């Protein structure tokens, strides 16, 4: 039964991914403007253009191009970037770690902040504190990460300039790592200067990405907590002498987190989507920043590669969420 559901799930995932590939391909190919012509110096001949078009496969029909491109993608060949003249997979993989680190940090902040606010709200339920937290999380929620990023630029770039507002790491620092996971590899190698610098560069964009999600988690989790806190087993825990806070943390939180998890999973994909513009605001050298450059430069293979990677990332995350939901729920695990 579980196997069958998983198989169906994987199949629909494959269909979705294929659909994404089709949409990306069609979109990029109907774009006006000949990227080849832009690549060549003004004096180029027709023959030069034709040669380059053949090189990038633009001389074939659209379905043919699609099949060739998809065949390449399946073998891990995403083509060559037109502007940067390097394989797309290499470019994308060199930037992916920066975006992943940023997203993960934002997720951690969002979950920690959201949970803390939810617990405080549930602890002080029925008081002015709860109303205040509700109102402010409502307001935080309706303002998107783009604006929060700019607010932080003003706050910590101008008003109280404690953090750097652009880049990923202090350019003075020498980094000779094997991967581009500066923070993780820095931790492993004990290069605390690298870790410290990347974290301080990441803090503001991560906070901007995290705030709306934190507010969302706070709202939903608090509501779930309040429902769970009416359950008999929490009453029993109070009778047994546990304080309200420890009832919330030990008895209620785990049960209340479960329904929140699905939301966090879906919202995490939105958060990753938000990195595109937030990276731009903070000149953070991640995938999103590269994507916008690629769009502006009409670098078709690069755009295709990045969008496809984002889509695959979203789909994988949703799968993982489903999986962890099953793992965390004892009823589903044993049933």
């Amino acid at each position, binding site marked *: 039964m579980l196997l069958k559901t998983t198989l169906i799930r994987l199949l629909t995932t494959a269909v979705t991914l294929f659909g994404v590939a089709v949409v990306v391909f069609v979109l990029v190919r109907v774009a006006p403007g000949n990227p080849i012509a832009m690549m060549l110096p003004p004096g180029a001949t027709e023959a030069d253009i034709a040669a380059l078009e053949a090189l990038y496969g633009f001389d074939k029909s659209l379905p043919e191009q699609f099949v060739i491109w998809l065949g390449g993608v399946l073998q891990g060949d995403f083509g060559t970037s037109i502007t940067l003249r390097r394989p797309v997979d290499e470019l994308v993989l060199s930037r992916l770690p920066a975006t992943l680190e940023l997203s993960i940090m934002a997720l951690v902040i969002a979950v920690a902040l959201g949970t803390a606010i939810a617990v405080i709200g549930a602890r002080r339920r029925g008081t002015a504190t709860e109303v205040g937290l509700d109102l402010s999380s409502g307001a935080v929620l309706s303002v998107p990460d783009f604006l929060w990023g700019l607010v932080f630029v003003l706050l910590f770039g101008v008003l109280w300039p404690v953090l750097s507002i652009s880049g990923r790491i202090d350019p003075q620092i020498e980094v000779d790592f094997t991967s581009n996971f500066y923070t993780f590899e820095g931790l492993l190698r004990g290069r605390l200067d690298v870790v410290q610098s990347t974290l301080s560069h990441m803090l503001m964009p991560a906070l901007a990405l995290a705030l709306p999600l934190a507010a969302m988690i706070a709202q939903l989790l608090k509501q779930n907590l309040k429902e769970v806190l009416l359950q008999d087993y929490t009453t029993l825990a109070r009778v047994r002498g*546990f304080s309200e806070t420890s009832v919330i943390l030990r008895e209620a939180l785990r*049960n209340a987190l479960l329904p929140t998890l699905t939301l966090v999973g879906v919202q995490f994909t939105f958060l990753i989507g938000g990195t595109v513009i937030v990276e731009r605001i903070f000149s953070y050298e991640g995938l999103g920043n590269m994507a916008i450059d690629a769009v502006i430069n009409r670098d078709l293979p690069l755009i295709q590669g990045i969008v496809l990677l984002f889509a695959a990332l979203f789909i994988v995350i949703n799968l993982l969420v489903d999986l962890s939901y099953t793992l965390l729920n004892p009823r589903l695990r044993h049933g």
Partner: protein
Amino acid sequence: MTGSQTHPNTLDVMQLNIALPNGHRLLRDVSLSLRPGEVRVLVGESGAGKSMIGKAVLGILPQNLKVTEGEILLEGQHLNAMTPWTRRKTVAQSAALIPQDPLTALNPARRIGPQITDPLVRIHGWSRTKARETALALLDRVHIRDPKRVMESYPHELSGGMRQRVLIAAAFAPSPRLIVADEPTTALDVTVQKQILRLIRELQQETATAVLFVTHDMGVVAKVSQQVTVLFAGKVMEDAPTERIFTDPRHPYTRALIAATPSYADLDRPFSPVPQALIAELQDDIVRDDARHQGGAR
């Protein structure tokens, strides 16, 4: 007073009043007491306020209900005079609850074992080993087969009857002097009900724990109790030893309640619900009473 100092009752409830925020009283001047090792049944129809007394003692009244008057003494200590923190500790040290619905009273996300041993370790300060041994012994005592496996189980893997046994074991584990059993058999099958009742009775006698047993079923009264308090609309109708209640009920409501229970009704007469006229009369009394009470308060 000096007598109660040396041999205090396990529980004294004195002139207890509980009201909604608008002043409407749900419990009216209820007094009762339990001696150590005694079982007292609170019996009444739904809405009589019988569960509320147990909740007031344990400090788990719903947020909108307040104790407006009266005293609760647990082993001679005034609970109402305590800070919430001391009160919680005091109650946890000497009282426990067997809840009504075993399906919702165990945390679905946690294993059975820690749900029994956690309070022993964290509140009563026992060692993990002692807590675990006690839990295993008690699970065995409540006739749970393979206690070790059950300790590792999640609640949904157990039947309703088994969960109630687990909850009984958990209630008796810290050796409380008072157990509030809040309709502990209502949510169970009839066959299981009898076993659970017998189990509570046996454990109560072995450990000489005082039990405040809340029920709507006169049938249960005869099986478990020594003392009975009959409640109607938050007011004590009759308070008497169990054998006298059945042989010589003095209050008309008690008589009606006995008549409404099939096995205790006169077998020649058909079993009859509590008559409407009696209910109306009693309610009139209470309304008059309340008016007097409010007049007095002003």
